[in-house]
């Protein structure tokens, strides 16, 4: 006999449902009552501890892939194709391992934050170096540092060999550097522009040409050791490539100081208020709403500043703001969100990671595969075109057929109440109670707008 739709839900169940679905990857059976005692505490507790797990050990280092990439690039044409063929199996292993971790972690909020910051520092796999090293970048930069300061994360991200190669700074030689004076000068302002916009102040931020030029010159010499050098593929600062003389950056004078110039510049930039607002707005758009309320962003900026440029502080500010727990589901689930939440609904584990990966790819979100500068979008318009919605519904139906519970449709309506609580629409619940076959009922539950959104 199916549970009736409750007359009213206890208030803590609202917060529990929102905590699990909006900030986590959805509830598993039995989770909502367990976290209802302190949903925000459940979220905040996930910010402690390392953002890694056993699935992520034993995977190749980014410097290893960077060195092999450099060797292939030096050899030219056919060698680059061969490089891609050679690493394809290994990259697939990494993709599956990362999915296995996401599917099985008991800290889904922390995992979402990892994905947010990894997407922020996007190294798209549409490029060969991104294909080769973006997962390693996530393991080596994002996961260890999301508990710390933004400036530390920014600096280590810029320093990582994959990023230096992706943004084409590894060969940057200042015109008045010792090497430059011998005729080897070559600079590229792509990294400076990306740092001044997407990585800090936002994609639309205006740049001052002098600031771009100064930052580019400060970054000369930030390079990657070649495959034949010691620590091939790792970061190497080359002082003889570095542009001498002081630089004026963001209205501040930076005396000549080698590698320390760009470090200081990143530190200054990363502490500017407009960066705090841009990052907070981006995080709010990712988690809460395509058009987040101003008071939410303020709370996040305060948390960030009070914590001392703290990424955890920004996440705390978000979680503790009432605006983050508005009862309207304003975000579409991305394909990853949809697959992970379906898996949690059915208690599917890491052994099903290959299936999850294929589903995520077939629904259009190949891991690390987003556009070059901004990574994957997260707006409703980006992910819910009519054909995408039809594909999602079909996918939910296929999964439901594989994993339908026994019994009748009543089992599914009870499951739905247990997973979404007050977020479940009474009309959906009614539909599930009158659907005889559990596979069809489960497919309808996955198809419902309250499951497609969070």
């Amino acid at each position, binding site marked *: 006999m199916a549970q009736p739709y409750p007359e009213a839900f206890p208030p803590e169940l609202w917060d529990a449902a929102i905590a699990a679905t909006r900030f986590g990857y959805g509830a598993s059976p039995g989770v909502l009552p367990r976290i209802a005692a302190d949903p925000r505490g459940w979220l905040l507790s996930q910010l402690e501890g390392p953002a890694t797990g056993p699935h992520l050990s034993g995977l190749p280092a980014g410097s290893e892939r960077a060195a092999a990439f450099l060797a292939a690039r030096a050899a030219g044409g*056919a060698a*680059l*194709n*061969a490089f*891609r*063929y*050679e690493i*394809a*199996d*290994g990259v*697939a*292993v990494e993709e599956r391992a990362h999915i296995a971790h996401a599917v099985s972690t008991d800290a889904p909020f922390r995992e979402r934050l990892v994905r947010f910051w990894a997407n922020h520092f996007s190294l*798209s796999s*549409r*490029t*060969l170096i991104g294909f080769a090293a973006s997962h390693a970048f996530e393991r080596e930069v994002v996961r260890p540092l999301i508990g710390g300061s933004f400036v530390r994360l920014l600096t280590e991200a810029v320093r990582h060999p994959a990023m230096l190669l992706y943004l084409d700074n590894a060969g940057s030689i200042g015109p008045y550097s010792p090497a430059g004076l011998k005729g080897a000068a070559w600079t590229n302002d792509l990294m400076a522009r990306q740092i001044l916009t997407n990585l800090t102040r936002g994609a639309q931020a205006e740049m001052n040409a002098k600031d771009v030029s100064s930052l580019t010159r400060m970054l000369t010499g930030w390079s990657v050791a070649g495959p034949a050098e010691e620590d091939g593929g790792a970061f190497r600062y080359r002082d003889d490539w570095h542009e001498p003389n002081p630089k004026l950056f963001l209205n501040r004078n930076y005396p000549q100081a080698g590698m320390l110039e760009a470090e200081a510049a990143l530190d200054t930039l990363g502490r500017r208020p407009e960066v705090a607002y841009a990052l907070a707005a981006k995080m709010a758009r990712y988690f809460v709403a395509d058009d987040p309320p101003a008071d939410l962003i303020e709370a996040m900026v305060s948390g960030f500043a009070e914590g001392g440029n703290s990424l955890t502080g920004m996440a705390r500010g978000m979680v503790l703001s009432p605006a983050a727990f508005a009862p309207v589901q304003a975000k579409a689930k991305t394909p990853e969100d949809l697959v992970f939440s379906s898996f949690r609904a059915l208690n599917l584990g890491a052994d099903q990671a*290959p*299936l999850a990966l*294929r*589903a995520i*790819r*077939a*629904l*259009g979100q*190949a891991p690390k595969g987003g556009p*070059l500068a901004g990574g994957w979008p997260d707006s*409703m318009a980006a992910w*819910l*075109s*009519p*054909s995408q*919605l*039809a*594909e999602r*519904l*079909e*996918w939910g*139906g*296929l*999964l439901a*057929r*594989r994993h339908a519970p026994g019994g009748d449709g009543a089992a599914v309506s009870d499951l739905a109440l247990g997973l979404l609580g007050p977020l479940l*629409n009474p*009309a*959906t619940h009614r*539909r599930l109670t009158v*659907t005889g076959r559990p*596979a*069809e009922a489960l*497919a*309808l539950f996955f*198809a*419902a*707008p309250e499951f*497609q*959104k969070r």
Partner: protein
Amino acid sequence: MSGTRGYLPTRRAVLTAGAAAALMPVRIATAAGPADRPLILVLLRGMPDGQALVPSYGDPDYEAVRGALALPLPGAAGGILALDGKVGLNPALGALLPFWARGALHVAPAVAGPYIGGEIETARRVFDSGAPSADAVLGDGWLNRALAATGSAADGRTAAVVLGDTVPEVLSGAIPVAARDPFATGPFGPGFMAKAGTLYANDPALGQTMTAALNTAAAAQAGPDARGLSALAFTMAAGDLGRDLAAPGGPGVAVIEIGGWDTPRVQGAGSGPLSRRIVALGDGLAALADGLGARFAESAIVVLGAGGRSIAPNAVGGTDPGGAEAGFVLGSGLDLPGILGAPAALGADQRLPGGGAAPTLDVRALLKGVLARHWGLSRSALDKRIFPNSASVEPI
């Protein structure tokens, strides 16, 4: 870590099919037959766009002719995956690269049978039946006749299985074949989408999207390519299918129809529904091979449509059926070159009147070569019984 060996492109012999036939005599297997050497036929229904699957990027006209459908060149972001300097794979087919690296992927860039027109149903009939021309009406399919020629269906075991609820013509004939849907891949009853639609009746954000989705789904179900599984269902079921086929006593032949390849409108290039379908196809093939496990070494997976599409986009951003298609064979024991046949020629004066590519390989030559090498079928059987009146078509 995988067992992929270091790969050097110079190790591949990139030969035309004719040269390959001259250098490598057809190997007659002694214990040939589906029980020892499984064959899986993946049929892409609706006439898939060969230039989307295997672009002729080395052709100087590629970007100009493909226009909005051109994929970025190798080396560019999201670029074509180069195979031999002339043709490559759609970047969505990255899952097939490890097979290329170890010599287990064979690509036919411009393959067609005796019918190269644009009627989807005619093309399907001619391909499935192995007929020598569009007007020849045979009562059965080439794969059923090939199965009969191996003599292996006499022991009463299920020799062949179709994943789905109908047996396609290619596998119809004297040898009985089971159709089954063990992986529950078929769609729900017609009411499912309508019921799902009612859940969106009052949703301000998604109500209109759902209405449009229902219309898209209804149109797809009425289309000429609405046969078999969707690519999404294939990618979900492929691993299980491989394991099922690899199990002792399993069927030696499986046929899978994948629908949805008719793209007369807005087909997109690097993104969109066709691109996602191609991802699902490539990933599914890799999962199928993975599911076969050790049996993959003894298996052959043939991936073909019944024809291709126009090279240049039409007025609504899609392509029109007709002309040569691109096909794949996955298998490590076939002794075939990597590229089977010359690339599709893209120039206006080299295309067929309907805008499609002129074939550089007869699909029967490809299938005869696979059947001869894989099951040891004789040239005589292939020329007379399995592909009637095809003595002039040399196996690859």
